[in-house]
């Protein structure tokens, strides 16, 4: 529709296509012939050309001077996270390897046919709080931290399952002491997790959390491996949380 015009032969869309030379030659010729005798369409064409001219003349706004420093800072942050990603995955790999070694040793060493205890319910998987972050790099880093935490949790769960079988041979007092030690380790993990949740984007919280995970993994691996000798885990040389 052409605003204010009475001629309905061509829509504004078709006239716009004519102005840009987008119509097929036959239709373009027809528009030209019609417009030469139609005041409405002649005016509409002039109007459209003026509109396009004015739109093309719109200002190009200048970005604020803070934009480049912000981009540069975000890029540096990303590069720091990329380095951190490697340094965080390395202990995960070592932890997983240690866990695998412990699993093999214990599986081979433990006599077959021991009574199986019901496994304690596994700790819920870690959910590092999804903090609303607008920086996609920060978001990506947080997702990777969460993946690393989940890997640690899986290692802990496997070792915990092995320990449950081993504990069947222990005295009630030894089992109580073990529960206390694990409780303290869990407290450290919970506090570190809370710190990580409160400070998204700050790697310190996550580093502390991962250190706590590593401590628990090392303790569980030692307990599973040495605990068969009636509480060896509790002797000097064992891991003490």
């Amino acid at each position: 529709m052409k605003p204010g015009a009475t001629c309905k032969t061509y829509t504004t869309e078709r006239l716009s296509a004519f102005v840009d030379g987008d119509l097929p030659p036959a239709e373009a010729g027809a528009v030209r012939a019609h417009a030469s005798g139609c005041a409405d369409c002649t005016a509409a064409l002039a109007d459209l050309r003026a509109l396009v001219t004015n739109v093309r003349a719109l200002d190009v706004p200048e970005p604020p001077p803070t934009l480049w420093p912000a981009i540069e800072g975000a890029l540096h942050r990303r590069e720091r996270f990329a380095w951190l990603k490697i340094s965080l995955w390395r202990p995960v790999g070592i932890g997983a390897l240690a866990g695998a070694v412990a699993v093999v040793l214990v599986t081979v060493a433990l006599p077959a046919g021991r009574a199986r205890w019901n496994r304690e319910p596994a700790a819920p998987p870690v959910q590092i709080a999804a903090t609303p972050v607008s920086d996609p790099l920060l978001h990506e880093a947080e997702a990777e931290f969460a993946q690393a935490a989940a890997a640690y949790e899986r290692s802990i769960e496997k070792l915990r399952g092995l320990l449950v079988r081993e504990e069947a041979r222990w005295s009630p007092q030894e089992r109580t002491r073990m529960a206390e030690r694990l409780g303290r380790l869990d407290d450290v993990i919970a506090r570190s997790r809370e710190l990580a949740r409160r400070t998204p984007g700050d790697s310190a919280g996550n580093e502390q959390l991962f250190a706590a995970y590593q401590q628990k993994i090392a303790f569980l691996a030692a307990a599973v491996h040495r605990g068969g000798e009636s509480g060896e885990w509790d002797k000097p040389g064992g891991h003490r949380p």
Partner: protein
Amino acid sequence: MDNASASMPVKPPTTPMLGATAQLSAVDGLQLGPRATADAKVHAPADNDVALIAAVRRGDAGSREALYHRFKRRVYALAVRIVGPIEAEEVSQEAFIRIFRGLEKFRGDAALATWIYRLAVNAALSHRSRRSTGPQPEADDDVDMQVGAEPVRGDAVLRVRIERALKRLPVGYRTVIVLHDVEGLEHEEIAQILGCHVGTSKSQLHKARARLREMLAADGITAAALENG
């Protein structure tokens, strides 16, 4: 008159964040076909672009900043007109981060500027999708403020009115008219940026102009005012 556009209220997104094509379709019901490689001309990067890309990839000092300065106004202006001036800085930042991250994988089968526009449009539309459920800035405040802040000349007022009408266009129409009429891109480039056919880009442009003209007429902008602008 600067920065005269602002975000218009948007419909809630109907699809998760996807590419520019899907987002335009979701917001405006555009029917964009599969990417029309057959009718989209391919523009290889210019020599100076190739040198700049190589410098950034090598990590040459100052090369990132040089690339930023070459494209900052285009990216920022596009962001201003798609998401409004308030959020344009955030969108531009996101766009440039995508650009620098993606530069390693840039194969050079399109002009660097076209590729950058594509990332900028995607960043802006993604931003709109994320923010569409949140509170939107008051649509006309910044425009009215700027009208009041400047000496009132006929052409300045006209441009403010055009900017205001632009931001009231559906985002699909707005994106095409900004890319073509404001930024001066060819339909082939727009088709590459939006992942649509050249014909779709043209038809969206003509519809956008028709809608814009109606809005301006409703706002009291006469043909004579446009011609004298």
